[in-house]
């Protein structure tokens, strides 16, 4: 490929069409691919998911409805309710911390600057990053 061929390629500008869906997809796709490229990271996430599911299942077995009634909580399964609350909070916290971690990583590595100079809005970028975070944390929620 010669300089002349590159010039020929760029002669006559092709119209560009802005699409938020495409931006969100690009951020999600790139970050998910990066996530999958770290084998240790994927393994650790899987172990953490399995361990969390096992832990909550074990706790759930310990506190059946009979024990709750005996503990004086009547018919209301408060502990199970609390467990679901803790698990949901944990899920949301993981998603937010993943987003914050990704942003810090992008700033530290210098990958955020070229993104800023592109056409993507911060909103699309954050949505794309969040989808990746929610999807990974989704393992945990589904397991629970």
């Amino acid at each position: 490929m010669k300089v002349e061929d590159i010039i020929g390629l760029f002669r006559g500008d092709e119209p560009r069409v802005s699409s938020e869906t495409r931006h969100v997809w690009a951020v999600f796709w790139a970050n998910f691919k990066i996530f999958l490229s770290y084998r240790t990271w994927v393994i650790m996430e899987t172990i953490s998911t399995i361990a969390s599911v096992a832990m909550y299942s074990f706790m759930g077995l310990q506190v059946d409805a009979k024990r709750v009634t005996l503990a004086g909580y009547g018919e209301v399964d408060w502990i199970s309710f609390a467990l679901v609350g803790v698990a949901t909070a944990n899920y949301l916290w993981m998603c937010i911390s993943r987003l914050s971690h990704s942003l810090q990583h992008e700033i530290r590595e210098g990958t955020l600057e070229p993104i800023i100079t592109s056409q993507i809005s911060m909103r699309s970028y954050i949505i794309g990053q969040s989808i990746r975070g929610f999807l990974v944390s989704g393992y945990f929620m589904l397991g629970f």
Partner: protein
Amino acid sequence: MEYAVETFDLTKIFESKEDGAKRIVRAVDHVNIRVKRGEFFGLLGPNGAGKTTLIKMLCTIILPTEGTAKVNGYDIIKEPVKVRSCIGWFHGETGGRSLYWRLNAEDNLRFYAYLQNVPKDVAERRIKALLEFFELTKDKKKLVKDYSTGMKVRVMLARALLHNPPILFMDEPTIGLDTISAVETRRLLKALNAELGKTIIFRSHNMFEVEQLCERIAIMREGRVIADAPPSVLREMLRDVHAVEVEIKGDNNLSEITRALSILPIVKRIVETKNDSLTITMRIQVDDEYEAIPVIASKFHSLGVKVSAIRRSEPTLEDIFVKLTREEAA
């Protein structure tokens, strides 16, 4: 006339704390430059002169403290999205850090093509061509982390061109490139400017390439523009600077030669010495080159040094740069 880039007292002040005391650094200090559409504009200056900060403000990466600028007619503060639609930014000093190292070259480019709203078929065509031009086709499936610095720089260059922007900010585009790639990159930039009318704001420490490519050069020092003119006009400023270039061969004691030359009344200073193992080239600033040539030749003869060439030397951009930055400092 509408300019490609026009700044209005553009200023950036960084504040930091040192030993509890507030320190203010004026990285860019009331800069007013105008770059015409289709111009190849050079930005020179010593380290810390504010060149990169200026470029980052024009690329809407950082906000100015005072003043503003227009890029392609759009205000960098009020219309950053429109500014971003017409610029390509390359920052060579990162040495490839601004790429996703866990993606391959093709995926990196595809990602940015999506962000720059390039239609899929056009993006694929351009990615293929640019990878081929930058000799990355063979390694396009390798993760960027396994690339050499030069390869990463080439991916970054491809990324800056991918969306075909009318204005290119090229901050050290040949840094880390081998000689052949650097020559090809310079040829490409020159052609993009000459044939497609792209405006290029070019920053480099390599005076030779700045002189070779740029139609106009701004020299910055401590955040301010201290000169803004075509290279020929800048060279005119050095009419009073005379220099002689001497080439010597063989195994010589360079420090002894330098000492012997320095005490000659006609020698002002030794500007630079290039030693490429076979030949030593010395640039010597003198009062009058025609009077100096026989005096210097006879000195070398008395030292027993074999001179292969001695000639009058034209002032270079480096001389201008040194003269201006020293004058300002004084």
